[in-house]
């Protein structure tokens, strides 16, 4: 007897195949995004095609509102939803190590446990190093602020390991996904694939509903989602840049934190932190109003957990910056470190992975696009 998740995946693939056959015979949505030109290259769809097309979809929703076969039509064609459901299975199937793919089943719970564990770890760690008195004291920047509580070495080691582990797991997922596309690895490392995919991802080209904005959260086209996603993503990137700059400062120049408010790492981190607060809040607000037809309800926990974690990372970071010379510093430092740790620990097993598979799908799209379209007689 097959495992339950295999059955679920087979059902989803079968439904996706039914829907894709309808879309391929219709083609009215061709101008909306990359998914339709990609599906039109095929006459039938195997499981690999289904994963590919599902991850090429940005869930903008425009095709659902334009669809003459959308529910309540008897064809019950809900393209965004079936692709969202398949993506959920993509994340589970290609997770590495494979056993941890199960974390996508109850992702909200998994993320909450990760946060709780990180909090316990961070407070325990700080308590062990600093002791209660020092933890609840105020430390001026001149006194070393964070480093009055926590030595740099162990902290860098913990986060270094968490970062490398996340990067390895994500890269493994990418590699497993890529292998199943059947495209050679070499094709990936070409300007066509890398520049094409990076360009599309960095601009969120396909979160635009074919030019007028996507029909999210409702039928009225809008660029709100793209803007909040940009805030979130570039906020994340700026925070990451802040960390990188600080690392260089520390090791290359021996300039130790805390850095002044107008220093490069703090400026980058502040801007990034604001993005990580405003972006996720905006995405959550849009999400709360979105058309349920666009969504896979089973993924709510995953979506919410990821957005909440990004928000908490940004918010605790900003709070730490604001109150770093007060008695609250110890608590805020522990909280912020816990959020960052939880973010990295859950990264390969949460919503973050959408970026990995979307990049792979976009790269494949750019590779395929160079090939001639199969010749069919004009209707």
């Amino acid at each position: 007897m097959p495992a339950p998740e295999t059955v679920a995946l087979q059902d989803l693939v079968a439904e996706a195949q039914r829907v894709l056959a309808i879309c391929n015979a219709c083609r009215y949505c061709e101008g909306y995004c990359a998914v339709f030109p990609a599906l039109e290259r095929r006459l039938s769809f195997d499981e690999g095609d289904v994963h590919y097309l599902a991850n090429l979809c940005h869930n903008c929703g425009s095709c659902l509102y334009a669809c003459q076969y959308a529910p309540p039509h008897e064809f019950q064609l809900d393209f965004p939803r079936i692709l969202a459901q398949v993506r959920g299975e993509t994340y589970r199937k290609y997770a590495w190590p494979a056993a941890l793919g199960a974390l996508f089943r109850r992702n909200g719970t998994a993320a909450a446990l990760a946060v709780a564990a990180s909090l316990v770890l961070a407070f325990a760690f700080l308590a062990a190093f600093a002791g209660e008195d020092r933890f609840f004291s105020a430390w001026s920047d001149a006194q070393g602020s964070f480093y009055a509580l926590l030595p740099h070495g162990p902290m860098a080691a913990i986060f270094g390991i968490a970062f490398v582990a996340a990067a390895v797991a994500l890269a493994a997922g990418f590699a497993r996904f890529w292998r199943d596309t059947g495209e050679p690895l070499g094709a990936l490392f070409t300007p066509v694939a890398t520049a094409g995919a990076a360009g599309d991802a960095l601009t969120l080209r396909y979160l635009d509903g074919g030019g007028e904005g996507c029909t999210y959260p409702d039928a009225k086209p809008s660029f709100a989602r793209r803007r909040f996603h940009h805030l979130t993503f570039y906020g994340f990137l700026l925070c990451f840049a802040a960390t990188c700059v600080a690392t260089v400062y520390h090791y290359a120049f021996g300039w130790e934190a805390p850095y002044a408010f107008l220093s490069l790492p703090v400026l980058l981190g502040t801007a990034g932190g604001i993005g990580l607060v405003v972006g996720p809040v905006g995405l959550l607000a849009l999400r709360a109003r979105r058309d349920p037809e666009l969504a896979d309800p089973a993924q709510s926990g995953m979506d919410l957990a990821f957005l909440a974690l990004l928000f908490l990372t940004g918010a605790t970071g900003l709070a730490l910056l604001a109150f770093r010379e007060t008695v609250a510093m110890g608590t805020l430092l522990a909280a912020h470190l816990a959020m960052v740790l939880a973010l990295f620990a859950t990264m390969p097993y949460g919503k973050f992975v959408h970026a990995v598979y979307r990049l792979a799908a976009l790269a494949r799209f750019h590779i395929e696009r160079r090939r001639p379209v199969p010749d069919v007689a004009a209707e």
Partner: protein
Amino acid sequence: MAPLDDARTWDVLVLGGGNAALCAAIEARAAGASVLLLEAAPVPFRGGNSRHTRNMRTMHEGPLAPLTDAYPEEEYWEDLLKVTGGLTDETLARMAIRGTAEHVPWMIAHGVRFQPPLGGTLHLARTNAFFLGGGKALVNAYYAAARAAGVEVAYETEVVDLAMEEGRCTGAVVLHGGARHEIGAHAVVAAAGGFESNLAWLREAWGPPADNFIVRGTPYNMGKVLKLLLAKGARPVSDATQGHCVAIDARSPRFDGGIVTRVDAVSLGIVVNRESKRFYDEGEDFWPKRYAIWGRLVAAQPGQIGYSIIDAKSMGKFMPPVFPPVKAATIAELARALGLDPAALEATVAEFNAAVRPGTFDHTRFDDCRTEGLAPAKTHWARRIDTPPFFAYPLRPGITFTYLGVAVDEKARMRMTDGSLARNVFAAGEIMAGNILGKGYLAGIGMAIGTTFGRIAGEEAARLARA
């Protein structure tokens, strides 16, 4: 529903909720009229058959994005003349044709977006402007534009009677949620489509064969407004057996299957009836002529069914249909799977194969692959059906539009049987398309007629109501 309870007399009452109705409502409102639009369908199925359209055949003297090259008025007119065999009103037809060039910017201004021709339709790149997302996206855009401009809309509202005497209509009686409402109007635009969803009426026109017809579009075009107008003395045009009818997959749903039900394999193989006999030259012409005639051809066969049969050579060489083909290793097996007489089908295929002359197959032009000494001949793209596996698609007539309608003048004013003009009734869209399409069909001309006469009807109705 609020607008139905409104005791006021509306300047313009629009009957119908598809492309022509929306164009009329938007133009009438822009001219300052108060407008109520009555749509029989609920929101998800609003828009009549416009929901299933995908392009508008558009005249243009030079490139007009996304259209390439030029498609001048004369060529458009010649194309129309060819498919209708002259059964058209030249004045009205040229109005519809010329109108299209002006419509594109107007449509864009009202939220419609265009895209390059779809995969598999490159041959239409010059003549037909495709809507991004298709007709439902267009309908959604027009409803949004109409509502934003202050047009009132009542859904699930069916017209059951017209208060009309001697060519003047003072209002309509409608049913909504089981309740009757009387609605007053200074002018009326009838844009409620044809009667293709009305199976009883189709049977009246076609006899028992109609029971085997599939309705490709909306189930809401019951022809009620058309019937009321004809009963109130409107002059009919075309006749009840004329319309746009294509051969579609016999496994399609009875209603609303839309574009995906088409089967484009006809010219690549042979088509037989239930006696396993061929009945027409499958290689006579390209789409769209082929597309437009095969519905009627199948309708004329016993049981109104045909079977498009191809072999492995042709698989994957046409637009993928939505239903999988019936597949078999031998012709006899294929016949059994289709419920045909295996010996008869083998004989037909053998006879066809023996008649195929050598040639160079090229599906993009009229090639020299043809049969000799076979009746009916296959004049192009004839290749032996000899490479297993063999595939078949069952075909039925798919009725798309009906052409029986009401006569109009150049201002979209409806004509009465005595030749006079109705005082305040205008007609637009499929309900008057028979003025221009006496028979035959030209892809994308329905939207041209609907947009031109919808806009004119809206403007004229507003002018009259506010005079």
